[in-house]
């Protein structure tokens, strides 16, 4: 008995040295694969787990909350050490989070938050959508340096939170700069084809020469708009400045080709900070902050976009 205890204590003491994380099993309930960014998030999460020697159990919920709840219950039944959830909706999580808490399994939310009491999850790792819009607006304010600028805006899907928040952030940043004015704003549904269609109408309604800058709520719409600008015989990036959000590989390519001016990264690496927090908590009970904000990095033509493109293109975007 005594020898056994000593042995066990020895193993526990050695464990951190030998790589404590090697024994961790973590369940990850992903929303689905509705966008390139989502696919990249899945790829990066798997990479992060592999680098840390974590056994990642992956469950694709196909956009359904009931699938996510089922997956979480099965993770609990399997006795995993921690759970990552990218919640598909904000409400209806209390019960299943309670079950995880009762089983002493820490839960970290990725990319979106939920309407549940804060003590039911360890932390949430998300980007700040308003801040992203803010960075975009601030870039344009600095870029035009006091010159008059008529801006057209391609909004995301009407009523979606990224569309509302990215619009708010941008408007906050250009507020008080009377030389900047949003002259037209219309939804492009976050898609390339709608971005192109709506930009075509902007170019005709305002006249290409009267538009100084385009702010698109995501890169896909900006990429579509670039084609519309080219077809109208103008030079995107030169005649019309283009700033958008997400930093997908094709945006880096457009930046490298001088057809776009700036993009703000919505990093697909939400799992990195999430796993850091979880490992620290499991090792010695360190409580992280309730919200971990990811960096919203600004990429402009000054960065080595070709290199970033090569790095990102195989992530599944």
């Amino acid at each position, binding site marked *: 008995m005594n020898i056994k205890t000593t042995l066990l204590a020895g193993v526990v003491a050695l464990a951190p040295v030998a790589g404590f994380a090697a024994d961790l099993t973590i369940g990850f309930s992903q929303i689905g694969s509705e966008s390139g960014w989502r696919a990249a998030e899945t790829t990066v999460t798997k990479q992060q787990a592999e680098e840390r020697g974590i056994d990642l159990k992956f469950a694709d919920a196909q956009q359904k909350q009931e699938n996510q709840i089922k997956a979480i219950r099965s993770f609990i039944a399997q006795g995993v050490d921690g759970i990552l959830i990218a919640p598909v909706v904000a409400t209806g999580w209390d019960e299943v989070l309670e079950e995880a808490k009762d089983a002493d399994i820490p839960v970290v939310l990725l990319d979106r938050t939920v309407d549940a009491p804060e003590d039911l999850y360890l932390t949430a790792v998300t980007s700040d959508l308003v801040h992203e819009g803010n960075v975009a607006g601030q870039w344009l304010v600095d870029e035009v340096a006091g010159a008059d600028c008529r801006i057209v805006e391609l909004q995301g899907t*009407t009523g979606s939170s990224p569309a509302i928040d990215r619009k708010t952030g941008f408007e906050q940043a250009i507020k008080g700069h009377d030389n900047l004015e949003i002259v*037209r704003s219309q939804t492009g549904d976050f898609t390339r084809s709608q971005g192109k269609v709506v930009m075509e*109408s902007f170019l005709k309604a305002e006249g290409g020469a009267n538009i100084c800058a385009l702010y698109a709520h995501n890169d896909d719409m900006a990429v579509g708009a670039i084609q519309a600008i080219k077809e109208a015989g103008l030079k995107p990036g030169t005649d019309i400045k283009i700033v958008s959000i997400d930093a997908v590989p094709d945006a880096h390519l457009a930046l490298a080709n001088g057809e776009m001016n700036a993009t703000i990264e919505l990093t697909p690496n939400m799992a990195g900070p999430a796993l850091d927090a979880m490992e620290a908590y499991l090792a010695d009970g360190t409580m992280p902050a309730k919200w971990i904000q990811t960096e919203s990095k600004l990429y402009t033509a000054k960065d080595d976009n070709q290199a970033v493109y090569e790095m990102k293109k195989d992530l599944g975007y």
Partner: protein
Amino acid sequence: MAGSTQGLLKRITPQLIILAAALLLNVIVFPDFFHVDFRNGRLFGNIIDVLNRGAPTALLCIGMTLVIATRGIDLSVGAVMAIAGATAASLVVDGHGWFTALIGALATGAICGAWNGVLVAVLRIQPIVATLVLMVAGRGVAQLITEGTILTFLNPGLIRLGAGTILGIPTAIVIWICLGAFVAFAVRRTALGMLIESIGINEASSRLAGINSRVLLVCVYLVSGLCAALAGVIVAADIKGADANNAGLWLELDAILAVVIGGNSLLGGRFSIIASLLGAMIIQSVNSVILLSGMPPEFNLVIKAVLILGILVIQSPKVSYLWYMLRASGPQPQPDRKSPRPRTTPEEKTQ
């Protein structure tokens, strides 16, 4: 010949009037609407945009008109667009030429259409359910082909199909007008159109009259699949990428609406492809009004719904009957003497 032209003109008069009204609305919100100039080697103007952006709906509604004439419906066309676009993109990414990609995409569309046709004609599953299967599953198939990403390509031949021009006219416009004219001609200058109508009106009796309804039904769904595939290739070529999630999303509903605005009955029977194509242009003109008006996007769907409702009310049998009665009653319509005194409104009662 002259008689049939006159008949056609009479048939499409309501659609022409509505289209004129929709275009007038465009002019009201944007006076330079009809201004067209030649820029960067292509015609450039709002009216060109309407014709160009209406191309996918127009192509879909050619096939949809035939399907609806047989008393069927094809909900899968949007998903077939995504599958065909993904097929074409993956073929050129693998190094094949644009023509191979186009043929490959059309073949995929034909297979999808034939699948629907067999479910409807051979297995006798109701069209709305039979095509719903592919509508739901099709996007998954498209995602399997693109592996969940937007598959971008740079093949100039394929891009020309969507974003290129022929004699300065965007290719998509040339394609839908030629295909529409060809199919309209083919069904009206042969017995084909009549046979399709007879299936829609009474399939049992048309079969007893010697029409091979099964083969004809499969063919009609196959044509719808082909039209959808062509639309899918155009949409993918336009943005130089196949977007499995969004290509043709909800476009099946616009196509059905175009057919209905074209005055075709969802209960099958008589149909006019030209009227459906005008319907597609009416829808695109309404979209154009919304974009040009500069209203906040929250109003988009409300404006569209109000305008479409107005169009459908004007076309409804009750309103046309009232219009007919009004005209029949002469220049000064008399109040109906037999009716009792006007009903009192609630406000009057309370006084």
